[in-house]
């Protein structure tokens, strides 16, 4: 469509100019579209069987709870969800979920698995291209080591089925994120979530100014942070205008700039801004900057002070990505409160939990349990089933994949966890985890427990971890 339109315009322009000249001006070459997906997902779901879980307590991820619930999935997708009356299709594998819970798989929107893997040696430390505060040209997927043993821990101990791996926060523009299915693969492409949009990691606050300021470079201050970011957006706008013109008129293709490609994607709304930002006042500055240059911030990550501006986040349709109780590890995390997540939810804004940590990713359900209880003690009464939105629905929304996963709605990917008890208890563990309907972890079957290449032949290979 775009090509045809450009051609027509080009032809029209040629005819017009032809009237005034002896020789018709050569027709501009039609615009050629740049491949926006040069490292495409090669993920293919693994086979599953027609499965029915009965008599379980179900949190559907959309805020609903079904006691004595039934969940049916086949062909990689949720087929039906309901109460005890829901019939089992013929030939289904039936699982008795009595005393157990079924939820959508947990989605961690903020992880560095693969780009800061275990073992944490410098040879494998690939999360921060800390060579310039502006590095939107780097893509996290090019750093991800699929053999990071952390992926398997997140699956087996954490019930995590999808995660976003981000570049670090040394830079104002850290690079592109990648969304992964938590399914082991030989290549990172083999883990990429099909159809998930890219994210752009941005950072405000202490990290960029410290990393560059300590080297005597800009930015050295928060005002330096914003100045560098604004100057970069001005370039990105000019770059986008150049390409818009090219796609409209054809002619000589402008020189490509990988960094600007990413920012152009943000300005076009194709790439989601995942903005590391702790302090309330700084989030407000970032919101104004987004309006100045015409892009939308999808989510503030590590939003420790989100509770101070939850109304502002609601009005601007920005999600807050939070910890339950981390505090004080740096100055900008000093004003943490343990009720942050429920306060944001209570204000009508989009709230969710995240780990940013290879250990924390293994117990995000417990982190929600703490935040939920802290909120209730402060008089914020949020139900268990609504709180599950912090673990799957809202992260799916902020990753642009809510149409595919994040809730147990029929037709969505069968990313499902069967817990051996109430997942808001410290005594509960994932019993089985399915991704796209394929059983990827079974607590009772040592063969359904991924072991990374790194762990083979090492002490503890294949152990319960």
């Amino acid at each position: 469509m775009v090509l045809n339109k450009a051609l027509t315009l080009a032809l029209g322009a040629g005819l017009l100019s032809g009237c005034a000249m002896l020789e018709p001006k050569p027709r501009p070459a039609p615009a050629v579209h740049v491949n926006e997906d040069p490292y495409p997902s090669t993920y293919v779901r693994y086979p599953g069987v027609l499965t029915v879980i009965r008599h379980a307590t179900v949190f559907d991820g959309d805020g609903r709870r079904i006691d004595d619930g039934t969940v049916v999935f086949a062909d990689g997708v949720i087929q039906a969800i309901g109460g005890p009356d829901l019939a089992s299709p013929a030939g289904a594998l039936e699982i008795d979920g009595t005393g157990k819970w079924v939820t959508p798989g947990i989605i961690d929107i903020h992880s560095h698995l693969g780009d800061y893997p275990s073992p944490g040696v410098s040879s494998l430390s690939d999360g921060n291209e800390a060579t310039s505060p502006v590095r939107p040209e780097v893509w996290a997927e090019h750093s991800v080591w699929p053999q990071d043993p952390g992926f398997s821990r997140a699956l087996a101990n954490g019930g995590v089925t999808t995660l976003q791996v981000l570049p670090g926060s040394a830079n104002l523009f850290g690079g592109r994120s990648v969304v992964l299915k938590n399914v082991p693969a030989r290549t990172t492409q083999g883990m990429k979530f099909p159809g998930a949009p890219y994210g752009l990691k941005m950072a405000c606050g202490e990290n960029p100014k410290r990393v560059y300021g300590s080297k005597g470079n800009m930015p050295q201050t928060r005002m330096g942070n914003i100045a560098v970011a604004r100057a970069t957006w001005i370039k990105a706008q000019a770059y986008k205008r150049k390409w818009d013109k090219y796609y409209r008129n054809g002619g000589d293709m402008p020189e490509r700039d990988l960094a600007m490609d990413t920012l152009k994607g943000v300005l076009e709304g194709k790439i989601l801004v995942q903005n590391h930002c702790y302090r309330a006042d700084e989030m407000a500055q970032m919101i104004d900057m987004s309006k100045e240059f015409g892009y939308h911030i999808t989510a503030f990550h590590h939003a420790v002070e989100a509770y101070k501006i939850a109304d502002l986040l609601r009005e601007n349709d920005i999600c807050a990505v939070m910890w339950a109780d981390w505090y004080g590890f740096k100055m900008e995390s000093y004003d943490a409160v343990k009720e942050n997540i429920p306060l944001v939810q209570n204000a009508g804004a989009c709230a969710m939990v995240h780990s940013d940590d290879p250990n924390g990713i293994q117990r995000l359900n417990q982190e929600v349990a703490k935040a939920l209880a802290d909120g209730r003690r402060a008089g914020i009464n949020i139900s268990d089933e609504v709180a599950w939105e912090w673990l799957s629905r809202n992260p799916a929304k902020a990753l642009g994949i809510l149409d595919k996963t994040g809730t147990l709605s029929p037709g969505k990917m069968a990313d499902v966890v069967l817990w051996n008890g109430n997942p808001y208890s410290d005594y509960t563990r994932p019993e089985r985890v399915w991704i796209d309907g394929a059983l990827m972890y079974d607590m009772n079957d040592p063969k359904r427990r991924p072991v990374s290449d790194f762990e083979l032949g090492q002490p503890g290979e294949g152990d319960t971890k």
Partner: protein
Amino acid sequence: MIRGLAALLLAAAAPLSAQTFVISGGTVALGDGSEPIPNGQVVIRDGKVVAAGNIRMKLPAGTQVIDATGKWVTPGIVAGFSRLGLAEVDLTASEEDGGGSSDTSGAADDTTSNGLFNAAIDVVPAINPRDTTIAVNRADGVTRALVAPSIGRNIFAGQGAVIDTGADMDAITAARKFQFVELGETGAEKAGGSRAAAYALFRNALREAGQLRRNAGPLSASGAGNASETDRPLIRDPNESRVYEARRNDDVVLTRYDAAALVPVVQGRQYLLVHVERASDILNVIGLKREFPALKIVLVGASEGWTVADRIARAGIPVIASAVNDLPASFEQIAATQSNVGRMRSAGVNVSIGMIDDSDTRNLFMERQYAGNLVALQRVPGATGVSWGEALAMITSRPAQAIGMGGEIGSLAAGRKADVVIWSGDPLEGSSAAEQVFIDGVRQPLDDHQSRLLERYRYLPRRDLPEAYRH
């Protein structure tokens, strides 16, 4: 709820001298490894536990009774290994390998990377009882903590203390309770690049300390008996003994002050906490115990301990471990598993839980969640968990026992310091909260920076004055 509430609140800021009170009706767990006791009692007098459990004592008329019906009552949490009170705000260079500065803006005292001394360092002056970290953990039921300095330029970090988290300026329960040394990967790096160098440094340090000790002569010859009151040292500090003046060789590596600090370690009068993770490092440390039999060694970390658990048990060395460390985060933790604690325990090792390299300055409240996770492992085939009672003991009495303080803190046995927490529910569930916290029998305030922020921002709509006027 509380009879005599007003009196209790009035007295909350000062020690309740000669006061008896009883916490009654709650589910009481003693912290000694036993399972919880429904409808139990805890009797407290003069800041000490008199009795606890399934008891019915005849109490003096007018004894204050705190009704804990529907609640859980346990000893306060004892953080097995921490840096509590050493950093208001941590190092800001934590996240990036991209070369951040280690500027702490005066807010952290937990390491001495440019200091001249090592073993001689006594962590006590670095502890600030008013750190918000102490208040935050007190509000979550942590009442005592083992506090270790971090190493600077040597394998020896210095002498750690046991503190309480009370809202007063007297935080120190036991000063210079242990020396802390790194003998794994970190120790190797500090010793010049290899474990072999670290062991040479360690052995030499102990020999230098031994020489000082021998040359100092018997303590009875010190003449201290004739000293007047003003000549006596203010602090009973091994560094200030006459050992410090003893003759020593010229070709020494340690400063005199550092060597003197290691004398009580060599004598077995001061515990030696040794951080190692790798199985071979653990066996090396067990070997040191044979070489220096007087050493009172406690292993810290020991992620691969389960693979040599029998040998740790035979050596009788206690372990303060990370509870749920299950990643091969380094090449010395390849065999890490959440079952490490349970397996060592099953082999007969005295195991407790600490916050090794895990937000050790501030997130000590995570220990009870971790303890609950160890209970969960009992239902995972192939894993080894621990019972509920043992899990609680690992965050209360076991760390105290590891450094010989089991008779003073960490359980509700008679005579222990009355560090008692009344919880809204099962304390090994992160969703439960500490509702009342007593330290030495004194009820503690539970408000902190965070609770004040919550009050200020609980409701956002604009009012007649800015938020700054809400206090």
